């Protein structure tokens, strides 16, 4: 019964979404205030319907309703409750419901908080969001019904894949979706602006927070996925340039370009056309990622992969939304001419360079991801494009990007003095060069880690220089504190996010100096790695709630003093008959000690031990980037211009 209610709620949501797209768009076109006034209530009604459907799905997983085929395929009664819930979105159908729920939440937010938007713009934005929601709800209803019944019901479910029974992964999809769906909102704003034929600072003030929020969530989502790969897959790697990873990196890169160029629209009313195009592309990349991953075109060797009908449906949606938006763009964009003129050397110029380089990197990632498929179809050539290509092809674009990142914020709007900015950064440059030489001196001849530490120092100290410059710490030190408090949060946010990138580079560079050992040890034996003594104490059986495992106990000693005890495991999940490797990691924020248990033989076991300097900084850095985004979001200017309930109803 609950399942049918959920299914009905999805269908209802689809109809409401259609209504939400048709009436407000017609209303805005005809300047009919009554039709436009339907936008907000319809968006809220759709949100309620989708929330009901999602609640029904959660219920089915929570009570382990084995008449629902989705539950049978992805859940089991013996699973901890949290993973029953996360199982609800740990599969294709459920994750799509989560996707439309977040989209409906965004629509509700625009409806609820957008009252001081011009009513036609608000109606159009909500209408476009309704159009997107209707497409994806149709996709769910026609190809991916999460409430499909099975009869007779099996005794119990087949279990969620053990690899996914993990807190990081329970949070990973919602974070990513908040990012993807956030770009649906900036897309809706872009299309609405094209329909209106107008982009102004008020539009920029609305687009910037949405692009900031989407980007921050996407950053966290990607970082969680990468962190999971690091501790769960047991190879000590964190980024593999895999097509599915690239699919999430593409909207992140374009989104980073978008949030920078939205600053220019808001502050200088310039780069409008470009910002609108980026907003369209960011969402196009989100959809493309969805298509690539769910259609199986890139991974066709996997039998489990996906139903071709789904791929075709998503491709159809992708074509309709993106081609439609681009056609509208080609037709209407020339009307959106910018007003701000700026010299090449200026803050605007720096942001254009940022856009150029980020988009070029995105182009490399996109082409590199798709090329094996194209080469096969067009030339019949079977080629591979892997990490060595991506590293080689993105580095020449990333280096100038990093170099410009510290300089850009010091440039003035409209026309700037590059020599002056560089002069203020002299100590930062010195620090970067010193870091590189220090790395070479201490760690030996490792070019990339040395460059990485130089980039880290350049960015972190550069962000500090930016803040010191803004508060005039050297020129008028007595007022520095007051100026620091008065500095807009957007300024702090930007500097912190840039420093976060620096922290991440330090982590990447540290990982470039990682060392490991692969040894066979008997209980009591020990080996040395990175100055530590690693002693295998024993290997024994352990019983968990829905798994049994072999657990090794390894004591790590530093000159006889115990640093930590690592307990890597090999877990066996009887439901699903799968083994997982649980790496044991000890971190002190400056380095990770990482141990994995392998085969056992003659009473001993093979262990792989890693010493990963600064590894956690990769994810700290991502967290700091997202924090910077969040801080920038809380800026007073955004809060003041955005929602306020006392706002008088906008004249129609």
């Amino acid at each position, binding site marked *: 019964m609950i399942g049918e209610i959920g299914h009905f709620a999805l269908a209802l949501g689809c109809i409401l979404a259609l209504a939400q797209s048709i009436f407000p768009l017609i209303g805005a076109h005809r300047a009919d205030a009554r039709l436009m006034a339907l936008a907000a209530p319809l968006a809220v009604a759709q949100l309620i319907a989708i929330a009901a459907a999602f609640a029904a799905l959660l219920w089915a997983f929570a009570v382990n309703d084995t008449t629902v085929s989705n539950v049978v395929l992805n859940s089991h009664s013996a699973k901890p409750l949290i993973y029953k819930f996360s199982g609800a*979105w740990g599969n*294709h159908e459920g*994750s799509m419901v989560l996707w439309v729920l977040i989209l409906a939440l965004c629509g509700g937010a625009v409806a609820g908080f957008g009252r001081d938007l011009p009513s036609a713009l608000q109606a159009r934005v909500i209408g476009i969001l309704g159009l997107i929601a209707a497409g994806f709800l149709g996709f769910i209803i026609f190809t991916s019904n999460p409430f499909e019944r099975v009869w007779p019901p099996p005794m119990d479910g087949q279990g969620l894949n053990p*690899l*996914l029974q993990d807190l990081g*992964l329970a949070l*990973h*999809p919602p974070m990513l979706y908040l990012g*993807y769906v956030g770009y649906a909102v900036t897309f809706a704003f872009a299309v609405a602006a094209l329909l209106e034929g107008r982009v102004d600072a008020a539009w920029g003030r609305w687009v910037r927070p949405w692009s900031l929020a989407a980007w921050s969530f996407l950053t966290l989502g990607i970082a969680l*996925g990468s962190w999971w790969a690091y501790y769960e*897959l*047991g190879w000590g790697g964190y980024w*593999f*340039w*895999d*097509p*599915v990873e690239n*699919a*999430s990196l593409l909207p992140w890169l374009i989104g980073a370009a978008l949030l920078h160029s939205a600053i220019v629209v808001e502050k200088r009313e310039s780069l409008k056309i*470009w910002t609108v195009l980026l907003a369209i592309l960011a969402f196009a990349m989100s959809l493309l990622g969805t298509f690539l*991953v*769910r259609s199986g075109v890139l991974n066709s*060797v*996997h039998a*489990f992969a996906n139903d071709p009908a789904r791929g075709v449906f998503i491709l159809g949606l992708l074509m309709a939304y993106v081609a439609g938006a681009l056609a509208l763009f080609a037709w209407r964009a020339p009307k959106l*001419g910018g*007003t701000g*003129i700026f010299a090449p050397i200026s803050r605007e110029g720096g942001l254009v360079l940022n856009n*150029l*380089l980020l*988009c070029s990197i995105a182009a*490399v990632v996109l*082409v*590199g991801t798709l*090329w094996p498929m194209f*080469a096969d179809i*067009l*030339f019949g*050539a*079977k*080629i*591979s*494009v*892997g*990490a*060595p290509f991506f590293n*080689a*092809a993105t580095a020449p*674009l990333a280096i100038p990007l990093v170099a410009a990142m510290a300089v850009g914020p010091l440039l003035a709007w409209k026309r700037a003095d590059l020599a002056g900015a560089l002069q203020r950064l002299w100590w930062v440059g010195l620090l970067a060069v010193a870091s590189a030489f220090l790395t070479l001196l201490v760690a030996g001849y490792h070019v990339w880690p040395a460059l990485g530490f130089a980039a880290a120092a350049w960015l972190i100290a550069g962000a500090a220089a930016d803040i010191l410059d803004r508060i005039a710490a050297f020129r008028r030190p007595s007022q520095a504190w007051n100026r620091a408090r008065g500095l807009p949060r957007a300024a702090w946010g930007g500097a912190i996010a840039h420093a976060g990138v620096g922290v991440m580079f330090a982590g990447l560079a540290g990982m470039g100096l990682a060392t490991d050992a*692969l*040894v*066979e040890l008997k209980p009591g034996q020990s080996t040395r790695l990175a100055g530590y003594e690693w002693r295998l104490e024993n290997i024994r059986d352990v019983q968990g709630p829905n798994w049994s495992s072999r657990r090794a106990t390894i004591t790590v000693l530093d000159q006889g003093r115990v640093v930590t005890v690592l307990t890597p495991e090999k877990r066996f999940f009887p439901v699903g008959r799968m*083994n*997982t*490797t649980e790496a044991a990691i000890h971190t002190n924020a400056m380095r990770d000690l990482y141990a*994995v248990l*392998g085969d056992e033989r003659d009473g001993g076991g*093979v*262990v*792989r031990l890693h010493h990963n300097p600064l590894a956690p900084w990769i994810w700290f850095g991502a967290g700091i980037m997202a924090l910077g985004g969040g801080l920038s979001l809380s800026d007073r200017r955004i809060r003041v211009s955005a929602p306020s309930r006392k706002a008088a109803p906008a004249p129609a």
Partner: protein
Amino acid sequence: MTRWIFLWLLLALPAFAAVGDPNERLADPAKEALAREIGRELRCLVCQNQSIEDSDAQLARDLRRLVRERVAAGEDQAAVITFVHQRYGDFVLLRPPVTAATILLWATPFLALAGGIAVIMLRRRRAVAEAAALSPEEARRLAELDRGTA
């Protein structure tokens, strides 16, 4: 994107089979490092985009052994990669060789940059022209300013 988790999972499956075999590694750390560097350039042909260093598929093991044999015999990186390339074709190289089929791929960074710069130059010229169209007086003043300091 939840699906990618499942895909990763498949990527990862061989990784759970074993953690590696200590006997595989070369005793000389410098040679082992070189062998690994070479291994990261080579694709495990039966896996999804994994290098032979990151996979425990049988084929990856065989290739790892092959690479280590050649490295132990004193061959350099180019020689080993050429050797493997000749036997397994372009598909084994994670860094695709520059051929007619990949020239555009390798040109992407330059094309993207050049295209972007061209668009920016064109738009700048038009933006200045449009602004000029607004009012001849403003345009003249602007041009003066531009000449004065640019």
